[in-house]
């Protein structure tokens, strides 16, 4: 689009549908989907709920990543580190707050305050650490292009174990533990701990993803697309590419940080081993398979990368011990490769594009991606 075209669109964007009604509609839809997801946890057994909670955490990170890659074209291979930053931020802050609360009256504080305050403080801590790291990376990202940014973020992932063992507070390969969030007394007769953690995971993920939806369909999203398409044109239209790119990176990091919070709540542990290179690349796989720029696609991709290793494990369980040991950990990597190749050949826009062609999802924007 030409610079003039863009200028007009930026100006008239909000006139087509009032911002207020759009906001309300978005919140309503987000609320509905959240309630739906919470209801769905009743259908699942504890292990399935654990998998759901894990996918929710991965979803938050992939959603941030898909927005970054799909809209601004910045390829980050290091989103696992941003998740880890969120996880460490959560674990350290929550543990500290829980310790302070316990210190005041001598024993671990009971009731809602005992877990809710550390939880909220932990989330705030996670947003700060992931946000700061994201800002630093974003500042670099505004000046780096394609492979250089990918290289920088890749180096971060590889450096994580050394960083964790160099900084004493992160306690090396063993990692730090996050406080356990128990089921509230009022609910303890109704739901098991895995379901409760799935609820928390869904709520945190909803808080991470909803702003992304708003951003994507709003003015900011348009600016990101403009910068992606043609930096000169967008500069002429009064859009500062550096700021847009940095901003996109920070927002994407915040979502990834919240994803890290979810995993820390569910597993009560943050360790560098959980956020290795393999996992970081899987996040990219999830974004690509789902369809770059599509948040619905990110959800599909997140579920896929969580469930596929388990399926492989189940499938190889019947094989002779020696053979299945050889396959364990390797077969799923091969499978992911195959999935990426098949999806990009058959549906270049990712699985979201496929779903969008089905009748039911045609009218929702959730599965729209930015592939043209």
């Amino acid at each position, binding site marked *: 689009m030409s610079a003039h075209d863009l200028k007009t669109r930026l100006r008239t964007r909000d006139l087509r549908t009032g911002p207020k009604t759009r906001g309300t509609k978005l919140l309503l*839809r987000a609320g*509905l989907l959240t*309630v*739906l997801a919470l*209801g*769905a*946890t*009743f*259908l*699942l*057994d*504890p*292990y399935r*709920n*654990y998998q759901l909670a894990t996918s929710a955490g991965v979803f938050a990170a992939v959603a941030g990543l898909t927005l970054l890659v799909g809209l601004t074209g910045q390829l980050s291979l290091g989103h696992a580190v941003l998740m880890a930053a969120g996880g460490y931020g959560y674990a350290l802050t929550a543990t500290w707050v829980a310790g302070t609360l316990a210190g005041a009256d001598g024993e671990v504080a009971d009731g809602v305050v005992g877990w809710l305050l550390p939880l909220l403080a932990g989330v705030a801590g996670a947003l700060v650490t992931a946000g700061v790291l994201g800002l630093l990376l974003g500042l670099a990202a505004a000046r780096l292009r394609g492979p250089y940014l990918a290289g920088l973020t890749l180096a971060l992932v590889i450096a994580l*174990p*050394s960083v964790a*063992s160099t900084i004493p507070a992160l306690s*090396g*390969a*063993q*990692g730090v*533990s996050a406080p*356990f969030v128990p089921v509230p007394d009022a609910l*303890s*007769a*109704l*739901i*098991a*701990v*895995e*379901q409760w953690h799935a609820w928390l995971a869904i709520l945190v993920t909803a808080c991470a993803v909803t702003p992304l939806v708003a951003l994507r369909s709003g003015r900011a999203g348009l600016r990101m697309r403009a910068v992606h398409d043609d930096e000169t044109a967008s500069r002429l239209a009064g859009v500062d590419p550096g700021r847009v790119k940095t901003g996109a990176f920070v927002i994407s990091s915040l979502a990834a940080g919240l994803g890290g919070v979810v995993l820390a709540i569910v*597993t*009560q*542990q943050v*360790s560098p*081993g*959980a*956020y*290795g290179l393999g996992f970081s690349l899987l996040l990219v796989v999830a974004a690509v398979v789902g369809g770059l720029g599509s948040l619905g696609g990110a959800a599909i991709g997140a579920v896929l990368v969580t469930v596929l290793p*388990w399926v492989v*494990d189940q499938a190889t369980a019947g094989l002779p*011990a020696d053979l299945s*040991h050889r396959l*364990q*950990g390797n077969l799923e990597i091969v499978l992911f490769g195959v999935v990426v190749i098949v999806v990009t050949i058959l549906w270049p826009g990712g699985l979201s594009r496929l779903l969008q062609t089905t009748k*039911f999802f045609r*009218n*929702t924007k959730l599965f729209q991606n930015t592939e043209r």
Partner: protein
Amino acid sequence: MRTTRSMSTVAVLGLAAATALSACSTPAAAEVPGVTDDKVVIGTHQPLTGPAAAGFASISAATAAYFEHVNANGGIHGRQIEYVVKDDGYNPANTQTVVRELVQEEEVFAIVNGLGTPTHSSVLDYLDQNGVPDLFVASGSLTWNQPDKYPNTFGFNADYVTEGAALAQHAVDTDPDAVVCVLGQDDDFGEGILQGVELVVGDGEVATNQTYSTADQDVTAQLGAMKEAGCTHNVLGTINGFTALAVGTAAQMEWFPKWHVSSSGADYPTLVEYLGEEGTPALEGLVSVNYLPNSPSSEWYELFSEINEEYNDGAPYTGNTTYGMSVGYQFAEALAAAGENPTRESIVAAVESGELVGNGIAPLTFSADDHFAHRTVRIAVVADGMQDFTDTAYEVSESGAAPVEPEQAPLENEGIPATE
């Protein structure tokens, strides 16, 4: 607004279904998980792949072979033992996933011999919250001995403090002028060994304490500092690879002090493999400790070799084989003592009762206040290319290491615990 309408229809349907099926995830009190009339299912997490696999993958195979031997002889209380081994690649993140799979999917009765300090630490709370017996953890970290906090967790190894104290005491006993130094891994392992050594020589009396990280490529700087400090006896809290590296590096410096090595890094066949033909003479006289019947002269060793031939495809017999089978024996003994209808509570009570004997070089010391079993370790020395026990053993308590007579637990009934 077709979308919104179809969405709400889905939502209503979903919620209706949810309420109908709400029993699925609710906490249920059922019979004992993993125990049926003819079977007991237990699980473990082990490094079958990844960097630690080379050193430890053979342990669970040996344990499984021992259970096959028990099952072929009728099992315990008529129940077959089913041992589900999950690979965690020595990565705490994988451990969390596979242990949840074991507890929730496989519904195991207990976790037995979960391997590794960083890995197992990450599931301690989870196992505690779910009341799963966490028996005989494969690590000597003091973390496992917190009966107040983790009432269901028990260690298997002799703890690192015990080993460090015995190794240092032996150094002082054999040479009153010994200058004792420590080289340890930069985690619980090295710290535990140092703590044990200081128990014997006194706080701050260690001539120099050097550490390494498993990511290090060499230990030249550390050994240089130790040589400089005039060490005569080096106590090592190192894994096999770094024991070999330390001994080899010192030999290159033409420095031949006494080596006193923890059981976790003193498997002679493995060290020989690391050092090769030329380096092997440097291992002569290497002192180590052990608490299991890992000596060709032991009748347990003979039985385990037979089981290894029959049920483990004749895999090479190493210290890991003795270790894995001893774990199996100790669990079988606990299960036998847990009564005809074992429950999670009864097996924990059985271990805490102090009646388990084990197959080690001294009776097990489990009690309600002590969740470690091996407080006595026996000195083994490499002589003429053979590593075997000497007659010296030490019992370690808070006051230090005292020499005792080793009291090898006898072998009865083909190595299958009796069930009265």
